[in-house]
């Protein structure tokens, strides 16, 4: 079973291919940033990137030219401001045009739920009266067969690869995470292949209040990457590096400064 635990570079090389639909998730917490950097290093191109809250790591992937399309619900530097690489791609097609497919959080979360559930779509009370349905083809009305009420349907998200960061795995590849768990479980279960980077590999997963455990057989690969969520955090292991979020604003505003940052990652 320990064959499930591999080095990060091997896992990314095995799982992520040009043109894939890839979701790196983590709602503020446990964002798999190191895995994103590895995708940049391996020079993947033409990815459809999926994420509820594209933030720094997606700004980096977009600026590095990995992405052809972004499926998302809120793209910003939380607490700081805009994502300048994302803006530059949408507004000026730099370094490449970026197609977008835009939803709300409720819609994205339910798309993952449908994906994890083996259903082709999910139903919610959402988007009604907004301008989103006019610009997003993946939002459609649906009628309740019992009450006749009109609600909204969104199609399932089933990424080729789902990637999250977690606190721990045991040697069999069972994964445990706690704190703000976001859509971690859903993205792993919705994806055809999955990678979980972890702070620590332990002999036994002792129970933790609020913890979610994903059995190893539901995960494709696990990689041991301490600090792999930086500048986000892993509750019980690290704190959020708020200064880095601030610093990113200046780096990302300028194509030159960004290119220099990028050289540092791919060196």
């Amino acid at each position, binding site marked *: 079973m320990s064959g499930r635990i591999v080095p990060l570079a091997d896992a990314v090389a095995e799982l992520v291919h040009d043109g894939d639909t890839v979701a790196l998730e983590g709602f503020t917490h446990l964002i798999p940033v190191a895995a994103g950097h590895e995708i940049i290093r391996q020079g993947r191109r033409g990815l459809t990137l999926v994420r*509820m809250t594209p933030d720094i790591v997606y700004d980096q992937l977009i600026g590095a030219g990995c992405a052809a399309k972004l499926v998302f619900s809120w793209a910003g530097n939380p607490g700081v401001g805009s*994502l300048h690489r994302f803006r530059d791609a949408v507004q000026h097609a730099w370094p490449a045009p970026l197609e977008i497919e*835009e*939803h709300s959080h*409720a819609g994205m979360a339910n798309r993952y739920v449908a994906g994890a559930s083996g259903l082709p779509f999910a139903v919610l009370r959402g988007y*009604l009266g907004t301008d989103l349905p006019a*610009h997003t083809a993946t939002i459609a009305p649906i009628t309740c067969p019992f009450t006749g009420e009109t609600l909204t349907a969104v199609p399932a998200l089933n990424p080729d690869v789902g990637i999250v960061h977690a606190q721990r795995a045991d040697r069999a590849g069972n994964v445990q995470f706690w704190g*703000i768990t976001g859509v971690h479980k859903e993205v792993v279960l919705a994806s055809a292949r999955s990678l979980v980077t972890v702070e620590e590999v332990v002999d036994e997963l002792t129970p933790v209040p609020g913890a979610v455990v994903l059995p190893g057989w539901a995960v494709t690969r696990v990689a041991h990457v301490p600090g792999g969520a930086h500048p986000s955090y892993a509750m019980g292991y690290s704190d*959020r590096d*708020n200064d880095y979020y601030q610093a990113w604003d200046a780096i990302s505003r300028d194509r030159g400064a960004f290119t220099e940052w990028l050289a540092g990652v791919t060196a």
Partner: protein
Amino acid sequence: MSWTADEMMTVAAARALRGDTRCFVGIGLPSTAANLARRTHAPDLVLVYESGTIGAKPDRLPLSIGDGVLAATADAVVGVPEMFNYWLQPGRIGVGFLGAAQIDRHGNINTTVIGPDYADPRVRLPGAGGAPEIAASCGEVIVIVRQSTRTFVDRVDFVTSVGHGDGPGDRARLGLRGRGPVLVITDLGVLEPDPDDRELTLTRLHPGVTAEQAVAATGWKLRVADTVTTTEAPSEPELTALRALTGAKEHP
């Protein structure tokens, strides 16, 4: 003690939260206001963050919507799908706090794109996040936003979150559960939807602000209520609590 316009805005927003209301809180000014309310007149206020924390009792201002202090102090932490499906959607949350890049005369909100062409925007904004469903499902919505002609526009370039649509009856027609924006709190005063036609109307001014200033900072011909009251200035306990939260030095 003297105070800034932003401090007045935050205090006014905090005061709008009463008793044991459940409040859906976004990061930034809404979070500051909600935390201030919990520390002053509304200790039983239930803070709900879209990251999944219900009843968080942070001892400092959370720096992000998923700050560890929220999970560590919450009554319950749930996944994001559960937060939207079980807690927000059925109308369990009394008050939703929203910001805006643009807001129009009927309280509709834009946080998506500036400019007439979605495909080729003048400014690409972060997008919807949780806002459309917060605006739809919370019992009522309070908007906190600095007032300027750039932000207060006759018609938003993009409806990210529905306020009162094009006027009376639109929310019901759309099947939206909550009452929509009941207060728009700015750095100048407070706007409320007219009970009849739902147009945002100036009903209150912060101390030292004139109705002319508010009108001048609005991109449509702002209606002024017959009686415009004046916000009570921030009290010393309010300012002390606020500055303890934000870490702001005492103002000049």
